[in-house]
């Protein structure tokens, strides 16, 4: 009965095939029954802002081209109206021959957190409750001479100026593991690894069970515990349905390598924001990319390598001196 084998890639939009009509027939019957039930539960429905088309929407990977286009159009209408902006929601697929990787130069990071805020500006997170996809851990420099223990890291540092004396910084976000535990455990198949290596979430399919959060060794996945608050003036109108489209209450979200940017040949927002050049990004399959240079010429390490999740986020010390 497995619909998706582990780490099975989504199809690029042009390859998405028509599914059998029998399941669609069943869905229509279920839809009718569901509609009847929904009409009979107005209190619950109003509490959850019921929208029939959204309710019946299929798993992203099951949508035909026409259905996907209808979803994108509906989302664009909904968000444009809600936020008063000309919103575009894309579903651009992966490029061939691309496997994204990220590099982080610990010798350069000063813990300014500009990446954290740039990410929030780009990706339409809730502002209250506040969700941040990047966590910067501050460590004692002397500790690194022996070992880096994540529990000795402090993500809640507040200084007038950074870097603080005797400290170094490790920013952590989704590692986009090649063998991600999250996509294995998700019961609905709402999260998976795309062919270009990005681990994505279908925010409309997630049921909020949070099994993926339990399975993530890097604390990279975040939950919308309350109603997300995204002021209209803060909305980034260039959206990707698997990336920075606004999320609802009760779903999980995380870094997507700025899928809406990188699949259009741009860099992630965190990379652009870093003032000291600590961040490296690119296509690991491209011999001329900066990430390939990094992997070929520097000694890199990944977090919790013993867990064999095979992260695509590589840490290194680029320069001598600081730590």
């Amino acid at each position, binding site marked *: 009965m497995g619909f998706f084998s582990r780490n099975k890639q989504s199809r690029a939009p042009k390859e998405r095939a028509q599914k059998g009509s029998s399941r669609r027939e069943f869905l229509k019957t279920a839809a009718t029954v569901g509609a009847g039930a929904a009409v009979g539960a107005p209190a619950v429905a109003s509490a959850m802002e019921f929208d029939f088309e959204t309710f019946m929407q299929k798993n992203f990977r099951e949508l035909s081209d026409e259905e996907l286009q209808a979803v994108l159009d509906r989302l664009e209408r909904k968000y444009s109206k809600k936020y008063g902006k000309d919103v575009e929601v894309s579903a651009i697929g992966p490029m061939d021959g691309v496997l994204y990787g990220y590099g982080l130069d610990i010798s350069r990071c000063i813990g300014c957190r500009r990446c954290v805020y740039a990410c929030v500006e780009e990706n339409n997170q809730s502002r209250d409750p506040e969700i941040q996809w990047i966590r910067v851990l501050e460590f004692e420099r002397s500790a690194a001479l022996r070992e880096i223990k994540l529990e000795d890291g402090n993500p809640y540092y507040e200084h007038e100026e950074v870097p603080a004396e005797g400290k170094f910084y490790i920013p952590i976000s989704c590692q986009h593991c090649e063998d991600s535990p999250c996509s294995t*455990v998700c019961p609905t198949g709402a999260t998976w690894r795309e062919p270009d290596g990005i681990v994505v979430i279908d925010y409309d399919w997630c049921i*909020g069970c949070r099994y993926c959060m*339990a399975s993530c060794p890097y604390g990279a996945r975040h939950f919308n515990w309350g109603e997300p608050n995204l002021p209209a003036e803060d909305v980034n109108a260039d959206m990707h349905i698997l990336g920075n489209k606004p999320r609802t209450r009760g779903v999980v979200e995380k870094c997507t390598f700025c899928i809406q940017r990188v699949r259009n040949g741009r860099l992630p927002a965190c990379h652009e924001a870093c003032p000291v050049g600590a961040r490296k990004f690119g296509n690991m399959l491209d011999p001329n990319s900066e990430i390939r240079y990094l992997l070929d010429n520097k000694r890199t390490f990944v977090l919790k390598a013993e867990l064999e999740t095979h992260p695509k986020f590589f840490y290194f010390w680029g320069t001598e001196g600081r730590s």
Partner: protein
Amino acid sequence: MDNLKVFAHFTKGSFLAVVRGSKGYYVWLLALGVLIALGAAAYQHQLSHGLITSNMRDQVSWGFYIGNFAFLVGVAAAAVVLVVPAYVYNWGPIRDVVLIGELLSVAAIIMCMLFVTVDLGRPEFVWHLMPIVGTPNFPHSLLTWDILVLNLYFLLNWFVVTYILFTAFKGRKYNPRIVLPIIFLSIPFAIGIHTVTAFLFMGLKSRAFWHTALLAPRFIAGAFCSGPALIFLIFRVLRRFGRMQISDAALFKIGELLAYAMALNLFFVATEVFTEFYGQTSHTVHARFQWFGLHGDSSIAIYTWAALACNVLALIIFMVPKFRLSLQILTLGCVFSFCGIFIEKGMGLLLPGFTPDALGEVYGYAPSMNEVLIGIGIWAIGALLFTWMARVAIAITAGDLRLTRA
């Protein structure tokens, strides 16, 4: 009389059995009703505002609800532990009361499903994990397995119970050729639901506290300590208030079984403590949190030691004949056993798994009032369903509720 008419009589008779009762019965119903209403109101509050009404956060993303779920799966599984002596060893005194154990199983599974449902961020989309209409990530996700086996186990028990009761209602004995194979099937299924639930936690290599082969055996040992203890307490209540004939021999037999189960459970605790503290690694921090607390947050430690005390006292009571063969003291032992395992397998399992979290942060979680109210409401629903099912079952087996030919 055709089956539909018989079923109509059965329904009417059952309805009367649960609606008519003594004053004490009505007080019990009222109390449960109040708790259920409070729980429903709390759940409506959660539906309106989201799971932010709980104290769970990214760092501790599962808590009170899933803790109760894990504990109740054990209760559901252990209900059939009585099946083994009853049918495999053909031990009469237990045979008559196996039905009650299976009703408890049904009620426990319903509570399990309710606890998982209230934990979901978007429960209206639960159909996403059903086959055909949804896209269950089967067989990779253990959660899909858990849902499958829990539902199958529920159906097994439900079928056995309704079949036995319906045939008794008609004044006939059940056909053993139908019932016995299903009852025997329920034994591996009971182990199965428990093992799959343990696998849920064990498979997570990100959580060192759970990533141990011992978790599945510990779950089973804990289940056998808590389930039969609860059944014992229920039997005492039913003897007193439900006019049910249960021999002392059956009760003492449960005490005997509990002795083995608790000895095994404490042995597992000892092996865990040895492994964690003798060869310490960075993973030991979770066990340290569990037993001693971390960074000033020692709330869970108090409960861990309390659970140990309960379990040790329970073991003494179960093992010393003078205590085990005293009904009052044995009752106390069962209370200790139930509470000890409730702490161990509920919050005692969940919190150290998430504390410290994946990036080493200590978030001191304790359930919010809203979570507790919903939890109590679910327990009250389970108690109510069990009460009603038991009243019908007792009425039928006692001969009060029978199909009378017109």
